[in-house]
């Protein structure tokens, strides 16, 4: 009995060892680490897959992809980054969960001589060797123009948004507002946060529909929230009556667009983002010239062109 706690601790560690053991290697490898905001959605999984493709193309590269449990666990992401900086990896690719909050640890990376590629969400940090992502503001504007066309320029419009203060979310919202808020026939209801999570997106949509039964259009700044909102709209049998536009164009969302449950979704190409991010990180790790800004591009997905995004 005296050893009970010891045994349990040993068992817990044994589990850890079994998991960790496989990542050890003897040969000198180029260690590249991609740290995303989370891995709980198709977007991040596909970005990870793209990163792995790029790493597989170079036999010297050893890639690890890590993330906190949820996008709001900013301190967990900072801890992961600190631990990687300590390991003096060859290069880091980071999708920051909090824009200001990661700056101190990015400075530590720089002090340790580790090049950092910023992925998906840009930060005001002049020392990044590259930013790989899309022009989110343009994406927001395109979504706004689509919504205005779809509602004939009249009616109540709301936005369901992700974590506040994060550049991707701010830019998508800003681009959308630029186009929609001042449009003469539009009644702007503002943006409500749902932390990029599906369940919260559904809740917020239910509340919006309760308060504004005559709501005409909703722009959700990522797919997960859009899919949640879609359920809330379907539950009230309002599918097709409330225009719904998402962002990311994951397969589930594109299938929903094809089926007519969602009107449109802004496309991102997460595999391409992941692949280009790791390609730039590898260049940086080898001291080769790196592209400062890699714009992956965005496009509007509607029922007409949904099929090509499902390949």
């Amino acid at each position, binding site marked *: 009995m*005296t050893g009970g706690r010891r045994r349990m601790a040993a068992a817990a*560690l044994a589990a850890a*060892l079994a998991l960790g053991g496989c990542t050890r290697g003897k040969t000198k490898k180029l260690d590249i680490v991609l740290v995303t905001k989370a891995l709980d959605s198709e977007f991040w999984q596909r970005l990870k897959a793209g990163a792995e493709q790029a790493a597989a193309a170079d036999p010297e590269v050893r890639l690890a992809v890590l993330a*906190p449990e949820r996008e709001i666990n900013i301190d967990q992401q900072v*801890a992961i980054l600190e*631990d990687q900086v*300590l*390991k003096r990896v060859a290069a880091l690719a980071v999708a920051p969960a909090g824009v200001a909050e990661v700056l101190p640890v990015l400075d530590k990376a720089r002090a340790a001589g580790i090049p950092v590629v910023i992925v998906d969400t840009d930060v005001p940090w002049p020392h990044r060797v590259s930013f790989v992502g899309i022009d989110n503001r343009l994406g927001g504007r395109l979504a706004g123009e689509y919504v205005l066309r779809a509602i004939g320029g009249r009616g109540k419009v709301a936005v369901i948004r992700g*974590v506040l203060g994060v550049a991707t979310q701010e830019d998508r919202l800003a681009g959308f507002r630029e186009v929609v808020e001042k449009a003469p026939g539009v009644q702007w209801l503002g943006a409500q946060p749902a932390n990029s999570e599906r369940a919260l997106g559904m809740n917020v949509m239910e509340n919006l529909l309760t308060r504004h039964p005559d709501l005409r259009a909703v722009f959700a700044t990522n797919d997960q929230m859009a899919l949640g909102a879609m359920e809330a709209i379907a539950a009230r049998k309002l599918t097709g009556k409330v225009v719904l536009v998402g962002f990311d164009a994951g397969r589930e969302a594109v299938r929903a667009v094809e089926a007519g449950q969602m009107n449109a979704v802004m496309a991102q190409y997460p595999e391409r983002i992941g692949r280009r991010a790791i390609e730039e990180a590898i260049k940086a790790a080898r001291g080769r010239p790196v592209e400062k800004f890699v714009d992956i591009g965005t496009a509007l997905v509607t029922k007409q062109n949904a099929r090509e995004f499902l390949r």
Partner: protein
Amino acid sequence: MRGGPGFWSRTASEALRRFGPLLALAIMCLALSLLSEHFLTVDNLLNVFRQSAVNALLALGQLVVIITAGIDLSVGSILGLSCVLAAMALKAGASPAAGLLVALGTGAALGAVNGVLFTKLKLPHPFIPTLGMMNVARGLALVMTGGFPISELPGGFRYWGAGTVAGVPAPVLVVVGFCLLFHVFLTRTTPGRDLYAIGGNRQAALLCGVPVDGRLILAYALSGLMAGAGAVVLAGRMNSGFPLAGAGAELDSIAAVIIGGASFFGGVGTVLGTLVGALIMGVLRNGLNLLNVSAYWQTVVIGAVIVAAVWVDVVRQRAAGSRS
């Protein structure tokens, strides 16, 4: 052991409670140092300490409450609100010292409110007022900031989270300082010892003339104060007062206290154990990070450790019960 002489089994049981967590920590460190060349370096150990600091501070407050057989679910949210209020005060031109006072004061005041709600309003269990506070404080933090983080805090304030003294991170010194204070408070002062009496048997403590309500309010105020201290360290470390700061931290702090050998039934628990509990969690997360194990698995392992620690406590208690 059941048939053994009472003295020895009592001693073994006591030793297990006292040193079991420390032993577990030592074994983990040994194993991790074999697995990763980066683990057993001064830099990394300071790193672990720094990453565990906020949880350790919250756990100290949680310990005081758990000793009284209570629970404080609001510490994560109080941390968030303290963080935000201090950052707002600093942005409005307050000095770093004033910002510090705002964070600590907010924490202690909200903690005291928890204590008053529990004792004076006679709510049935501390779960209820602190669950309420958990939501109220988080909601207020979000309302006051509109959800936006308040970043770029002045250097003087950031010192406690990001500074160093002779190479030692300031948060480590903060944790050690508070540990000493709490140890002395719990073992050498009357109010501190009263908390154990209350946790052991509230009615008996009342009959012995312990001012139970006052002591309980003090316990919750201290827990809130530590949430304020955690806010200072976290805001400094992240250079930001963000309204979602400390989301889920209450459960981590409870886990640290329990892993550290305190009894959920009250009356038992030490500062050393709690510190070790927080370090066990920190070492696990850090070690698994170094081994590139995903955060999901870290959660699984920590969950298993919590259950194992409490299981040991239950078995130990049953053994103690069968003797008498």
